[in-house]
């Protein structure tokens, strides 16, 4: 920009490129606000998002699959006659043809339950508002409807569909006649949280969760038959304390019961819980017959097969499992959904299962290899959370953007920084994460573009906006107002350059984190599993920290002694020191650990595993750091020694008071490096069975065939620790650098 410092204030006008940037910011903010307002008022412009599928049923003729979703729609897909569970070699989920679908509309609430009438093939749907509709799928219209008290969180039908049990969000359990829609009776108190209800096939028993307990009533009389709270695996022991003292398992749910189902013969009650376990209760005795673990997230639904030989369990960990009965051992795991699996059922054919998920899809699975053989979307789109996130972002960025535009028009420096930070950091998360997520969907590229085009458009828009904001003439106008004195201009420019550097730096970090996150997600990690064992693995963190800290302390002392030895003119000290360095640096750390742990006991010196680890690591890193210290000490100039000697200081005083403090400052960065390396090498002590971080990650990972997941947790911890340490090191360096030219 032309213009000299002595130009008048007239030079500070928003012209040219700056005006373009200002207009772009203002327009972006205004449009964002408009979008947010229409979104929250229920307007039509929104991101294409899926509708979570909450219920699924297979028609009696095994040809149709009905799915009810969050948007109140029941979709019925008709399976092509030729469809079979045989998987073709070149099977590609993304390119498989979709099935003809019929939409049944009319529900106002989310459709939470679907049942086919076995004789007539009619479909019954229940929504969360308590409306029950009866459909003839051939006509696509409801034949009749009835309303029970809503809102409803779970319902279950008897086998002949004559009665229906419901539990409301008000925690009340009720029994209804399906013929008349009349209330038959209410059961239990609404005192505690109830999420699940089940009705036995013959309609005789009702079970409902009550916190982590289960209440079972006789449907005819309304009397409480059982309150199932759990019992010891050894039936003789009554209380939990006795049971645990005897080293037996206490079989009970520890968190809310979230799913219930009666076996077809009514002898068993299966219960699933937010504690991720499934229990099978013997209704005759009221005791737990068997238990099943294997899900890593809360159980969302349970479904017996018609013969009572297996149970389908679905979980918020994105998988469904088949549990074989008796015993409840897992006989199959079906993974692939990218959201919680809400429901699953047997069919359409003998060798298939169908599942409904909050990722907006239903999947058909074959049971031999547990592969997905078909997938349908409720509505093609992004996960629903992204729709909400974008609206929230638009609201916030709209308001802040207007503030920034106001500031920009008045040539305020902060507004330029605000605008840059806002429109760089926000979009990276709000657009970057969903865009990357779509890349992971099993869809052809054209379809992916159909979902994500608004995001791509937004990304282009924001990029243009950023480019406009960051162009040099624009930046100059805000960084260094022409009207200010030259010295002020230069100072302001310096400050702003630093700030801009910071903004860009943070932007790059967040962008790379998003990228890393996305890449990791493509690894198909079992996130629920990671969450489940996170605290167990982290239990090793304190040991890791302790071993690292103790080892580094030992290493620093040894390194100092070693360096003195190396610099000494005493041949014995010099020899010992150089031998130490040579031996330790020349042999592998792992071997040294074994020597300390397994070799020393031969001499009658028995060390604790942790102590042996600290000694091995400390001695090893001491040898490496000796060289660092030696270099640091030698870097202190001869003049410093002479000045101290000339003052009458002895060699010891000179070293302690003059040389060492200066050498320390020099060696801090390389010592920091060594410490970071040691923190990670401390995992080697796991060979001695110390229960530190890596040991735990390894143990859990191998037991569950999820080594990648557990090691990633450990890696993340090491990284966080390293970042924290680098921060501290930076502080220390600044402190030690006093006297250094700044």
């Amino acid at each position, binding site marked *: 920009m032309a213009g000299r410092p002595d130009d008048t204030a007239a030079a500070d006008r928003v012209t040219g490129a700056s005006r373009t940037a200002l207009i772009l910011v203002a327009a972006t903010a205004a449009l964002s606000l408009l979008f947010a307002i229409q979104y929250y008022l229920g307007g039509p412009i929104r991101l294409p998002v899926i509708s979570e599928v909450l219920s699924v049923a297979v028609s009696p003729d095994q040809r149709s699959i009905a799915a009810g979703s969050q948007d109140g729609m029941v979709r019925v897909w008709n399976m092509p006659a030729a469809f079979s569970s045989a998987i073709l070699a070149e099977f590609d989920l993304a390119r498989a043809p979709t099935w003809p679908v019929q939409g049944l509309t009319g529900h106002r609430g989310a459709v939470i339950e679907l049942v086919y009438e076995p004789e007539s093939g009619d479909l019954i749907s229940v929504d969360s508002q308590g409306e029950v509709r009866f459909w003839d799928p051939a006509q696509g219209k409801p034949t009749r409807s009835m309303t029970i008290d809503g809102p409803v969180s779970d319902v279950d039908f008897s086998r002949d569909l004559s009665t229906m049990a419901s539990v409301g969000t008000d925690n009340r359990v009720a029994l209804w006649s399906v013929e008349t829609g009349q209330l038959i009776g209410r059961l239990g108190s609404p005192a505690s949280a109830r999420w699940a209800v089940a009705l036995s096939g013959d309609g005789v028993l009702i079970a409902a969760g009550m916190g982590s307990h289960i209440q079972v009533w006789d449907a005819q009389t309304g009397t409480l038959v059982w309150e199932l709270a759990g019992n010891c695996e050894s039936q003789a022991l009554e209380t939990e304390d006795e049971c645990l003292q005897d080293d037996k398992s206490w079989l009970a749910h520890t968190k809310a019961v979230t799913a219930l189902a009666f076996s077809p013969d009514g002898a068993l009650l299966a219960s699933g819980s937010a504690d991720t376990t499934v229990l099978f209760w013997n209704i005759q005795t009221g005791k737990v017959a068997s238990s099943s673990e294997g899900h890593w997230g809360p159980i969302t639904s349970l479904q017996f097969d018609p013969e009572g030989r297996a149970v389908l369990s679905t979980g918020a960990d994105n998988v469904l499992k088949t549990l074989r009965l008796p015993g409840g051992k897992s006989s199959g795991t079906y993974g692939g959904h990218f959201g919680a699996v809400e429901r699953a059922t047997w069919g359409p054919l003998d060798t298939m299962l169908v599942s409904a998920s909050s990722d907006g899809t239903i999947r058909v699975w074959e049971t031999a290899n547990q592969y997905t053989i078909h997938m349908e979307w409720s509505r093609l789109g992004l996960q629903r959370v992204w729709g909400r996130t974008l609206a929230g972002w638009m609201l916030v960025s709209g308001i802040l953007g207007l503030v920034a535009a106001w500031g920009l028009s008045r040539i305020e420096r902060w507004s330029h920084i605000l605008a840059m930070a806002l429109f760089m950091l926000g979009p990276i998360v709000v657009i970057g994460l969903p865009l990357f997520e779509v890349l992971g969907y099993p869809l052809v590229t054209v379809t992916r573009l159909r979902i994500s085009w608004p995001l791509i458009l937004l990304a282009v828009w924001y990029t243009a906006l950023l480019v406009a904001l960051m162009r040099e003439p624009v930046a100059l106008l805000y960084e260094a107002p022409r009207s200010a004195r030259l010295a002020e201009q230069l100072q302001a420019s310096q400050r702003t350059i630093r700030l801009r550097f910071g903004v860009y730096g943070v932007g790059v970090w967040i962008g790379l984190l998003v990228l890393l996150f996305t890449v990791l997600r493509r690894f198909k990690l079992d996130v629920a599993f990671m969450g489940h064992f996170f605290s167990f693995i982290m239990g090793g963190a304190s040991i890791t920290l302790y071993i690292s800290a103790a080892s580094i302390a030992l290493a620093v002392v040894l390194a100092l002694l070693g360096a003195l030895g190396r610099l000494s003119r005493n041949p014995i000290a010099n020899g010992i020191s150089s031998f130490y360095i040579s031996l330790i640096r020349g042999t592998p750390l792992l071997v040294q650990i074994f020597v300390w742990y397994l070799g020393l006991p031969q001499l009658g010196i028995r060390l604790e595993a942790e102590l042996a680890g600290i000694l091995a690591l400390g001695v090893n890193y001491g040898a490496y750091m000796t060289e660092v210290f030696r270099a640091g000490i030698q870097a202190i*100039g001869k*003049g*410093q020694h*002479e*000045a*101290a*000697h*000339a*003052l*009458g*200081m*002895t060699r010891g*005083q000179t070293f302690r*008071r*003059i040389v060492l*403090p*200066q050498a320390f*400052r020099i060696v801090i960065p390389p010592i920091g490096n060594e410490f970071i390396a040691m923190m990670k090498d401390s995992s080697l002590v796991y060979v001695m069975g110390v229960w530190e971080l890596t040991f735990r990650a390894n143990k859990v990972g191998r037991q569950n065939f999820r080594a990648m997941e557990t090691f990633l947790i450990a890696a993340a911890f090491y990284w966080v620790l390293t970042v924290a340490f680098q921060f501290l090191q930076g502080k220390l360096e600044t402190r030690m650098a*006093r*006297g*250094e*030219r700044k």
Partner: protein
Amino acid sequence: MTEPIIKVRGLHKYFGPLHVIHGVDLDVMPAEVVVIVGPSGGGKSTFLRCLNFLEEPSAGTIEIDHVEIGVRDTGAKHRQLIREIRQKAGMVFQQFNLFPHMTAMENVIEAPLTVKKLDRPAATAKAEKLLSWVGLSHKRDEYPSRLSGGQQQRVAIARALAMEPKIMLFDEPTSALDPELIGEVVEVMERLAHEGMTMLVVTHEIHFARDVADRVILMADGGWVEMGPPGQFFTEPKEERTRQFLAHIL
């Protein structure tokens, strides 16, 4: 007649095969200011550094304030004598050699604390006086990196004086300074001379030599060329070598 405070007899110094000082003798009386000038490589600095054993002399004897050391001795007794001499002879270096990790004040009190085992209040009080004497009491808490060369050298002089030396050795104290900073250091040295300090100064500052020195020595090729009061030394030198040297620098 008082005794000389510095007595050097037959001082030789070899660096390997290189014979740097060819057996020189020197007596310096208390409160006398002796300036040594001469061409580079003539052995001036080496001679000075031999006096407090920063360089171990190869032959000869050195006696400073009645402490006599035979050269080429070893052992604890010898090291103890060297430390005694060093406490009697303060030294100021060309490169200042302040301790960069200490403030001006800490630089000055360091040796009194560690060597003389003074308590901190006493050392600090004395250092305050010295810093104010060199005109730097306002810089007492600055690190050397924040001081100009002239200020650093003045702190270095205060640091040496804090040990209450009998003599002061100056090894080209102004050679590393920008021309406009030389004056402030020379001024301090002049005041020191006026207060009766025995000073042995290696320098190229002819003005200082002419105005302050009691005796000027020309040293070249490891030996004395000419020695005399400044009036005679600068105006009517006896030796041809001295005339050549003066012609170069004046």
